[in-house]
């Protein structure tokens, strides 16, 4: 996509909507489980709904339900949310160069829906086709309502909801991430960044609180990729 091509089109919106559907299905299953946990922790349906509508982050919401059930107070909840959400800094920094032509209110909107899955789907598209706001907004328009509705339904009807593992829906997230990362691994530096990211995320998980391991992976993995790239160029000289 070049600079004079439209940043938004109905066609790309529909494509984003369509390609996010299997992830939305997983959001429904996992979201319902989150709603059940929230209700069991003593939250009302309204509070679970407010959490999904405003926070819109699975990791933070599951942690919040657990903390509320354990009787934690506001400070513990807010600190945990901060630790779990810091990884979004890396996602935002890497998606930002694709949003130079986006209006400020597009950026405001996109930031709200920047979940891990929306980011992965969007970057899979952006790295191949260039910036495509329609696609990203289509993805968000599928995922957000699915998550909010599922968490509220989970809190309201609780035990009637089956375990998502029975249908393999818990595999939708790794499948989404693997399906998006594999085609991007073309050069030695891509492989180095990806493998270093995985190693850092896994080895630092027991040490770092919240999702700081993902922040470390996102920030340091590319440094390894760049080092491999530099070594390769030096060798070719």
């Amino acid at each position, binding site marked *: 996509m070049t600079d004079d091509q439209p940043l938004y089109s109905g066609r790309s919106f529909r494509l984003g909507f369509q390609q996010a559907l299997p992830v939305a299905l997983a959001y429904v299953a996992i979201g319902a489980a989150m709603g059940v946990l929230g209700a069991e922790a003593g939250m009302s349906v309204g509070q679970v709904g407010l*959490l999904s509508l405003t926070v819109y982050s699975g990791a933070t919401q599951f942690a919040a339900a657990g903390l509320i059930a354990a009787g934690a107070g506001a400070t513990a909840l*807010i600190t945990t949310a901060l630790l779990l959400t810091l990884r979004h800094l890396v996602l*935002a920094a890497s998606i930002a160069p694709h949003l130079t032509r986006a209006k400020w209110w597009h950026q405001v909107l996109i930031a709200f829906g920047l979940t891990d899955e929306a*980011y992965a789907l969007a970057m899979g598209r952006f790295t191949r086709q260039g910036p495509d706001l329609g696609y990203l907004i289509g993805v968000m328009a599928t995922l957000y309502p699915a998550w909010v509705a599922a968490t509220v339904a989970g809190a309201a009807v609780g035990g009637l909801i089956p375990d998502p593992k029975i249908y393999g829906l818990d595999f939708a997230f790794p499948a989404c991430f693997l399906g998006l990362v594999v085609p*991007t691994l073309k050069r030695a530096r891509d492989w180095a960044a990806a493998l*270093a990211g995985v190693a850092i995320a896994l080895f630092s998980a027991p040490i770092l609180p919240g999702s700081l391991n*993902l922040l470390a992976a996102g920030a*340091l993995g590319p440094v390894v*990729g760049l080092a491999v790239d530099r070594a390769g160029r030096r060798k070719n000289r």
Partner: protein
Amino acid sequence: MTWLVWTILAMAALTYLSRYILIPLVSRRALGEGLKRYLDLVPASVIASLAAVTLLDKNQALAPDMALGALVTIGVALISRNILVIIVVGIAVVAGFRWLVG
């Protein structure tokens, strides 16, 4: 539980800020070549680490159903770029394995 409503709103503000704050800062600047190359590699690193983290269980172990699903998903991703197909096949393989093995 009014305190909980205010706490939820504070959590929402923190989450939103972490997602938003760098977008206008980075998107408005002319980035140097080195920083551009660095940011180009961030998605591979982040998405691969998310895949690894979501594949493993709480004890950081890889269950056989997830391992099989990952192998098949990688195989499909090598021949198809259709993310819809990749995810559906992955889910079907994991669900099928669990149904067969229990």
